């Protein structure tokens, strides 16, 4: 059987005054029902642009330059805007980063949830209302009947994010994209929202694409991880692959730079340098200038995806049979072990 979602060689650019910004440069991944894929990477690596491209909601002068987005075998890239309006909110929906601004301030919460139901499921107002109350219940909002008639400013940040999740879930989407859904929230609320998303995952069986900076969150919620750098996925694998057997020096850097509960500041590792300018992506491996393990070939030729195992791929020349055998630096190794351990413990709770 074919996959629920297959993204093939997706390329997204923005036309700007200075030229074409190549934000996403060939991203491929696939996703099964009930699976959670985490996309991680530094700021500007193209995570949000990728997710907006899946919904064909690119801002400004953004456009899909190449590639396919196959949802149950149907290519969304070829769909017209009118057709996409029937797909958005029904088959694919999205939870955004900032719950404080992602709800319409002058529309009642109830109406904002009911809108999609009325549109996509042809419900009358009465049924839509019942379903909306049900949804508010499901995302853990007390007194849903009262809350239905309130406005966003009457909700706290965490509550708003629950409402946004309710809106996204309204029509039982096949794919739910969450773009840093907990970044704007404080730590305890973050944990609650993550817990909620995991529960929902079990109940509705949507596939989830979870975008985050936070590798701690990844260990907690994801099945698969895609690591993005400069508009490409440079390493892809199961959570275990990425945490116990990372192959790309950039992934090493990310793991080394994530704090864990028992780490001190001095131990934290920072990847040197800054990401490349996407107006002129470099030749060769885009990460090479920041990579202490870069080989000569990195500056001339881009590494292909090397297969590590059936689930695990990484784009680094270090995996070439002729490459010298390089191990992650000892500090990073320790950090990633400690980090993975705490992640596991959380996950087992």
């Amino acid at each position, binding site marked *: 059987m074919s996959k629920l979602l297959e993204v093939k060689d997706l390329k997204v650019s923005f036309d700007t005054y200075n030229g074409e910004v190549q934000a996403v440069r060939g991203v491929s991944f696939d996703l099964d029902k009930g699976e959670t894929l985490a996309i991680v990477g530094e700021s500007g690596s193209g995570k949000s642009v990728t997710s907006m491209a899946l919904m064909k909601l690119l801002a400004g002068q953004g456009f899909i330059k190449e590639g396919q987005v196959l949802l149950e075998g149907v290519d969304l890239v070829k769909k017209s805007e009118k057709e996409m309006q*029937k797909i958005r909110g029904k088959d694919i*929906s999205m939870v*955004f980063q900032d719950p404080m601004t992602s709800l319409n301030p*002058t529309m009642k919460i109830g109406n904002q949830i009911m809108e999609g139901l009325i549109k996509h499921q042809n419900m009358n107002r009465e049924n839509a209302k019942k379903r909306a109350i049900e949804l508010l219940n499901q995302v853990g909002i007390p007194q849903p009947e009262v809350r239905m008639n309130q*406005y966003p*400013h009457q909700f706290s940040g965490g509550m708003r994010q629950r409402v946004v999740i309710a*809106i996204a879930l309204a029509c039982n989407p096949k794919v739910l994209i969450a773009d840093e859904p907990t970044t704007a929230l404080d730590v305890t609320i973050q944990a609650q929202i993550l817990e909620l998303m995991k529960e929902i995952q079990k109940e509705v069986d949507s596939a989830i694409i979870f975008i985050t900076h936070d590798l701690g969150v990844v260990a907690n919620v994801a099945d698969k991880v895609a690591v993005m750098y400069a508009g490409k996925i440079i390493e892809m694998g199961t959570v275990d692959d990425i945490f116990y057997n990372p192959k790309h020096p950039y992934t090493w850097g990310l793991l080394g730079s994530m704090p864990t509960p028992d780490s001190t500041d001095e131990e934290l590792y920072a990847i040197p340098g800054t990401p490349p300018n996407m107006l002129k992506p470099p030749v060769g491996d885009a990460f090479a200038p920041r990579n202490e393990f870069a080989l000569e070939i990195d500056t001339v030729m881009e590494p292909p995806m090397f297969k590590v195992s059936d689930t695990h791929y990484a784009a680094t020349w270090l995996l070439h049979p002729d490459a010298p055998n390089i191990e992650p630096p000892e500090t990073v190794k320790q950090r990633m072990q400690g980090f993975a351990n705490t992640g596991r413990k959380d996950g087992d709770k």
Partner: protein
Amino acid sequence: MTRYILRRLWYMFITLFIIATVSFFLMKMLPGSPLNAEDKLSESQKQIVLEKYGLNDPVPVQYAKYMGGLVKGDLGISFAFDNTPVTDILVDRIGPSALLGFQALVVGTLLGILLGLTASIFRNGPLDYTSTTIAVLGTSIPSFVFAGLLQYVFAVKLGLLPVALWGEFKHTILPTIALAIHPMATAARFTRTEMVEVLHSNYITTARAKGVTESGIIWKHGLRNALIPLVTVIGPMAVSLMTGSMVIEQIFAIPGIGEQFVTSVMVNDYPTIMGTTLMFAFLFVAIILVIDLLYGLIDPRIRLAGGSK
């Protein structure tokens, strides 16, 4: 909420008191006297007239007398129209001014919203530039120039509408248009700016992600949020209409308050000047109050804040 309104009414009263005081003394500094035109009178006759109207009293005494009357709702007797109380003159004249102002405000705001909305939807296209040009012309060209143009084209050349005077609906058309240009331009610019900002906001992306159609985005999610702040400029717009009306009423010979004010200043008819000034001031503060209350009604965020006070 009631306490809030009461407090606002109290401020309104203070404001009017200050305006009355300041304009009373400013008016006394106007050059000339009410008797300028009557040079035929002998010196002793003049004295009798001045005595009769209390104009020989020291200014502070005149002020005290005037304010005393004002508290009782007595605005004095006009110098120019023998023995007509100023209140009667105002009551007589408020009708045309109010009608004109209201028509201009409604027409101007609605057209302006439409213009600004079109511009924001077709951002950076020809329609946007056209609408921006209209808005810029509308703000920078004074309304009396439009008035003259309108009279020339529609009344003199085409003979479609009367040049001036008052009485039927057709008399109101040209002055309404002339007056509406300013509010229209303001509303157009404001709506465009707000709408462009709203369309870029996160909740619009949320709505799009729900599958809301383009028309739903604009009418249901966009416009309402863009128009709420417009309510705040309706106050200043109404005020600029009042000042505009002084000239426009003069040009179209409309028996309104603006025209009365201009005539009264010419002849130093003190009580009428004071009366019209206070009338304008009252309308001004009343409009601001109504707008503020209205704003609270249509913006749920403010509604709550007001309610919990």
